[in-house]
Structures are given as structure tokens and as C-alpha cells.
């Protein structure tokens, strides 16, 4: 299939981006990563513990995978900007998943602070991939300040609730036909991923749905297939929905 996914000038074969959090073991994470076919994985920036020797988490990642640092745990633009700068210094990458959280219970994004941080980081040359509420106007603002893609949530982080507002995604796709839309957060099962892709998302970012599955590697395979299926369905063009039936077999010519 020649349907490549291009993001900030870089070509990907896979439209699935996955996280590295919550896995029960490194082996399980590696198996899931491999099964998913993903070419980009997210990591979090965190204080180095002072009281013990630490091994590098990054050593457990397949070196061929692009690393996308996130600004998880940041509650205002200033912290997110500082975290992005630290990640760039440590990893020598301009790519960042911008995440500014609004509150601890819902982990819903603070869109205002996200936009502020995006403005600053884009000016500093970052490739800013912002996580935000699935809102068309916010998407436009984020694109206007120079984000190469927008990452609306499907549902709260780690909730596994699936696409809560398909109309918002559909409107975003229709109104921003040229934008790169990556659905980030909230996918629970492969059908959720397929729905998001059928609605026209260009890619999906997920973590918990795979990491918390009983068999993470098998779920990663299922997600890979779902993303592919949803994508194929979207570019194929779905049949129209009808309130009433439309016979598949000829009515005329049936025996009487």
C-alpha cells in the first residue's frame, strides 16, 4: 500500500503512534511495540532519582523508532516549555508532544495554556504536536500558530472510553481537509481506533489500551489492524447512512 503518513515532512508507514507507559515489564513493552508496527513512541521527561542508580529507559526502545518526548505532568505553559527544552537538549530532537493538563482528575487539556506554549515553542523551532480538546476552533488556532498537526482527544487520557464525540472529529476533518489530525487519548479497543480512522483521522496515538491489555502484544496487533482497516475504509469512502432499507438483491424477477 502506498498510502504513507507524512508528518512534518517525515514519512511513516504506520499510522499508529504508541506510548511507553504502564507496561508490566520491559519485555512486554518491547513485544507490544514490535507487534504494533509503530514507528514513533512517546516518552515522558522526569526527574532523575538522586538516591539510586538508574538505567536508561531509552535503552529498552527499538533504536529504529522515533522518540517523541511529551510534556506530561505540566499544568501551565511555562512548565511545558521548560520540559520541551529539556527534552530537546537531552534527545537532540525538535519533536514534542505538547500536553498541558488542566486538572488532575480528568487530565483534560488546558487549551489556553497549550496555545500559549505552542506559540513559544514553534518560534523556537520545535515541531509541536499538541494534545487538546476535540474542538474545531482550537484546532484552527493551533494550526495558525504553526503546529504541523493537531491531536484532539477521543476521551480522557487512560479512560478507554473511545470516541466520545464523533461529530466533532467529523466536523474537524471536513473543515480542515488539509490538516493532519492525530487522535490522541481515550481509545480503549480496536473498534474505537477504527472509528476514529473511519472519521478521517490521519493517525492515532495510544498507550493504555495496549499497555493495560491482558496480552499487550496481541492487543497491539489488533490495534495495528484496526488502524489499517479504519484508514482503508476512510479512503474507500463509506456508503451513505439511510433510515430505511435498500435491497441488495433484485426485487424484480423473484418467483411468485
Amino acid at each position: 500500500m502506498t498510502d504513507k503518513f507524512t508528518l512534518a515532512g517525515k514519512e511513516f508507514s504506520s499510522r499508529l503512534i504508541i506510548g511507553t507507559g504502564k507496561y508490566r515489564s520491559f519485555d512486554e513493552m518491547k513485544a507490544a511495540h514490535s507487534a504494533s508496527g509503530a514507528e514513533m513512541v512517546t516518552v515522558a521527561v522526569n526527574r532523575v532519582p538522586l538516591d539510586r542508580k538508574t538505567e536508561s529507559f531509552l535503552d529498552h526502545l527499538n533504536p529504529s523508532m522515533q522518540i517523541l518526548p511529551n510534556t506530561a505532568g505540566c499544568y501551565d505553559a511555562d512548565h511545558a516549555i521548560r520540559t520541551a527544552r529539556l527534552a530537546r537538549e537531552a534527545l537532540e530532537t525538535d519533536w514534542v508532544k505538547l500536553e498541558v493538563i488542566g486538572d488532575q482528575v480528568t487530565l483534560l487539556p488546558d487549551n489556553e495554556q497549550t496555545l500559549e506554549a505552542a506559540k513559544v515553542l514553534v518560534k523556537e523551532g520545535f515541531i509541536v504536536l499538541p494534545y487538546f480538546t476535540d474542538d474545531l476552533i482550537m484546532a484552527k488556532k493551533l494550526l495558525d500558530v504553526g503546529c504541523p498537526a493537531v491531536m484532539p482527544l477521543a476521551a480522557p487520557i487512560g479512560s478507554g472510553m473511545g470516541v466520545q464525540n464523533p461529530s466533532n472529529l467529523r466536523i474537524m476533518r471536513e473543515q480542515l481537509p488539509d490538516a493532519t489530525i492525530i487522535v490522541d487519548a481515550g481509545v480503549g479497543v480496536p473498534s474505537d481506533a477504527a472509528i476514529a480512522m473511519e472519521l478521517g483521522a490521519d493517525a492515532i496515538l495510544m498507550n493504555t489500551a495496549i499497555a493495560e491489555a491482558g496480552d499487550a502484544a496481541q492487543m497491539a496487533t489488533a490495534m495495528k489492524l484496526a488502524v489499517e482497516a479504519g484508514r482503508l475504509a476512510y479512503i474507500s469512502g463509506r456508503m451513505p447512512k439511510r433510515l430505511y432499507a435498500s435491497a441488495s438483491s433484485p426485487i424484480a424477477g423473484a418467483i411468485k
Partner: protein
Amino acid sequence: MNITVNGEIKELEKPISLDRLLELFSLPSQRIAVELNREVVRRKDWPVTIINDSDRIEVVHFVGGG
């Protein structure tokens, strides 16, 4: 003198360079980044950056995340 490293107050006898400080706390030197008083210090500047009284240092690495 007292400094704050990753939120913990630490005592130092006298000002030292940032790369010495990392050694002192047995911190890894690869794939980490350091902030001094909220500004990133580039790796090449570690040896010439002096840590003084009341400085606040953040040393970060990467962990699993989504």
C-alpha cells in the same frame, strides 16, 4: 552553601562546576538534560557552569509515558 537538586536541598562546601556536581550525585551523563535556575544548560557548557549558593537544579531523564 545549600542548593536544590530535583526538589531536594543539598549541602555543598563550595561552588563547583555542573559536571562535577553530576558526578558527585552519581547522576548519569548520557541522555539527560540539566536546568539551572529554570534555564537549560547545554551539555558543552557543563564544565564551565559554576553552581553557587541557592541555585536550583533540575536533572531529567526519560521514563515511560503516553
